[in-house]
């Protein structure tokens, strides 16, 4: 079968957590697979990452180029398309970088692309069988992908549990010369760090978190009143920030803050994986949503099917009476 490559994200000389998840995913494709890590970058950081990866990968392909010092998806795509055999299976984390890299890479390698895979059922001849989610996780689909000419497979971060495995004692193979000169019509300038908000939701023990179900800006007060009564702070999911009802600094999720409260009240939040990715430390989760099919009920400890616009004010009143 075709060779499996795992694209390794890294920062400051340290591989991303996804590096171990990609090995686990490769074993789901073929239990006998020994995936090859492919790492792009520059300088001492790149060398440090490659060295650390030899503990878990039998072979590590290094592509060093000053233009790759910052992982610009446009340049990484060009490098990979030149260096990797085009019939390979290339595993990529489906995050802000993988979304940039993966779809176009499949075109440049003339292979198949499958996005945001949450589970892999294995190979069936030339077909890779995977599971994807649609409509914010409300339904899932089994998907068959013809990988006979290779594929780029974007994998959901956190969906593949790293395996315990013996040290690989791998070797680093320098492929830098095969990438050649790299230029792009998109040039990285700088990274702007998010502004801190009026409260740091990442340090709060109790969060009253609101989602699309809050309906309109004026209703945010309903959540604030409950939070005041509970001694809690209001946070939210992405649609509330998109609609400009709350500041970005209040957003829980992969594109917002990572929080680790003791108690998390998810009110009118459907529970997308991007939102749940920001929820750490195993909090006690209460979900209140009028849609009984909302994915949040799968991860919550306690669920109530109700309209938050009616439920929350009554809850606030009762708590005030305590």
């Amino acid at each position, binding site marked *: 079968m075709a060779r499996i490559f795992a694209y390794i994200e890294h920062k400051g000389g340290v591989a991303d957590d996804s590096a171990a998840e990609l090995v686990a995913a490769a074993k789901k494709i073929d239990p006998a697979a020994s995936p090859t890590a492919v790492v792009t970058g520059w300088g001492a950081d790149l060398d440090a990452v490659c060295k650390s990866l030899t503990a878990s990968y039998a072979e590590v392909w290094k592509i060093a180029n000053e233009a790759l010092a910052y992982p610009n*998806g*446009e340049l990484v795509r060009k490098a990979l398309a030149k260096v990797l055999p085009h019939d390979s299976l290339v595993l990529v984390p489906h995050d*802000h970088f993988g*979304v*940039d890299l*993966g*779809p*176009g*890479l499949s075109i440049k390698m003339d292979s*198949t*692309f*499958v*996005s*945001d895979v949450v589970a892999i059922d294995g190979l069936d001849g030339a077909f890779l069988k995977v*599971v*994807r989610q649609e*409509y914010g996780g409300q*339904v*899932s*689909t*089994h*998907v068959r*992908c*013809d*990988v006979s000419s290779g594929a780029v497979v974007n994998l959901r971060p956190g969906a593949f549990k790293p395996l315990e495995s013996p040290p690989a004692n791998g070797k680093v193979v320098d492929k830098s010369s095969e990438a050649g000169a790299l230029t792009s*019509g*998109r*040039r990285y*300038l*700088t*990274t702007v760090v998010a502004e801190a908000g009026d409260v740091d939701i990442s340090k709060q023990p*109790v969060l009253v978190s609101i989602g699309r179900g809050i309906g309109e800006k004026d209703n945010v007060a309903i959540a604030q009143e409950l939070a005041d009564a*509970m*001694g*809690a702070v209001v946070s939210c999911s*992405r649609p509330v920030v*998109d609609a*400009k009802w709350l500041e970005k600094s209040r957003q829980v999720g992969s*594109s*917002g*803050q*990572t929080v680790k409260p*003791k*108690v998390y*009240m998810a009110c009118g939040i459907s529970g997308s994986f991007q939102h749940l990715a920001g929820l750490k430390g195993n909090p006690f989760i209460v979900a209140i949503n009028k*849609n009984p*099919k909302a994915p949040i*009920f*799968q*991860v919550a*400890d*306690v*669920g*109530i*099917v*109700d309209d938050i616009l009616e*439920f929350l004010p*009554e*809850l606030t009143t009762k708590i005030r009476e*305590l």
Partner: protein
Amino acid sequence: MEILVCVRRVPDTAENEIELNRAGNDIERDDLVYSINEADNYAVEEALQIVAKAGGNVTVVTVGGDDDEEVLRREMAMGANQGVLIKDEAFNGSDGKGIATILKAFVQKGKYDLVLTGVQAEDGGAQVGGMLASLLDYPFASLVNSIEVLDGKKLKISREIAGGNKEMNEIDLPCVLSIQTGINEPRYVGMRGIRQVASLDIPTFGASDLGVAASSVGDAAAKVKRSDYFVPAMGKGAEMLQGSREENIENLIGLLKAKGGLK
């Protein structure tokens, strides 16, 4: 600036509970409320704001069927100058690459400085924009959450990366950008606005108009296919409080006290 925005009509997850159909080969589509894909609507608003400053025209295009005209008209009511429907039986069953192949042919028939898509469709994979850019050999950026026109030849954009941080880039035109939700505040469209564009002509393009080989698109060319839909096992799942609202509130307060949720 000539801007093309690729849009889709999708079931509105804010308005529907998505369920399986009886055969398990699709979602139940009877009585679904459809709307413009949310990220696509932000993309159209962004295009309108760019031409308001820099001049030019906004064209909205969708690959679909006659039902999809309604989202084109909605975006024309917002201010898009032209709507285009791409439809052909040969396009049915296309995967992401098939759709990108069709859009590439359409882009090459015009002269666009900038092509926008939404970052992802409700039932999609955040893939068509990136594929389209690579097919066209245009620069691409995903998850774009601000755009500034620097001159006639390039843009300054930011991409949304982890933790709410922004990655700033300069990108040459022509290029393809996938637009993240929240980039702007899309303008309201009322019934009156939709009535005003109700009789405007929406040209239709098929495979032969675009010079797309039937073998490169549609079901036959699709390498990624759904075999079925299912609802995954719930894992542990929440303990559902199923009393009256009053009982639920009482139970919840007890639980919150026990778990340290009340001060």
